[in-house]
């Protein structure tokens, strides 16, 4: 009997924009899909159970969860990058970069990964890092094991 390989049990990533002057509709119009959550600075938004939270800053977030079925974090990042890639519209990335500059917004990519004991954390491909740097969007890695 051989010992089974450690298995990655969950991973996903999100594309998140934030800033005090963030207008969610502008980001939605540019990216072309509805966010999982979005609000302006000071706006009250409802989480589950109806709990109300006031946004300390504006935020717009879309997640690869429920959209990508893969244990490879790179696949999740590829999906998020596809949302802003030139193939989706020649000047989409340029428009996004302009909006980020004009409205003083930040872009980052919270990444979740949970592995079984002994599993190796994900290795993010260099081309993915380069494409993220073009936005620019910072990776925020939340990797851990049992």
């Amino acid at each position: 009997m051989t010992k089974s390989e450690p298995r990655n049990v969950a991973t996903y990533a999100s594309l998140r924009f934030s800033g005090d002057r963030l207008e969610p509709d502008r980001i939605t119009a540019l990216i072309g899909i509805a966010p999982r959550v979005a609000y302006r600075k000071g706006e009250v938004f409802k989480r589950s159970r109806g709990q109300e939270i006031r946004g300390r800053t504006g935020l717009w977030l879309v997640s690869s969860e429920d959209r990508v079925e893969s244990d490879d974090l790179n696949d999740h990042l590829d999906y998020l990058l596809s949302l802003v890639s030139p193939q989706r519209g020649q000047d989409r990335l340029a428009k996004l970069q302009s909006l980020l500059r004009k409205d003083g917004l930040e872009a980052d990519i919270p990444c979740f990964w949970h592995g079984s004991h002994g599993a190796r954390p994900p290795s993010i491909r260099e081309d993915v890092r380069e494409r993220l740097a073009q936005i620019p969007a910072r990776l925020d890695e939340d990797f851990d094991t049992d």
Partner: protein
Amino acid sequence: MPQKVWSSPGNPPRAIATRLGITREQLRYAIHRIKEEVKLGPRDRVKIWDDGSVANEDEGPIGNIYDEI
């Protein structure tokens, strides 16, 4: 009255998950989802109560573990 079970930076250990009656993976996943929706990062401190309530460092409520799993 709910008791605070976690108030340190980083990911809570398995004992906290056990106290909440869930796996550590479920706990980490729930915390991650809550944090990312309020512009917090993995290293930002949150506080957790044994009824699943989660608050930021200033004890402002930001979610509940049981809503995310």
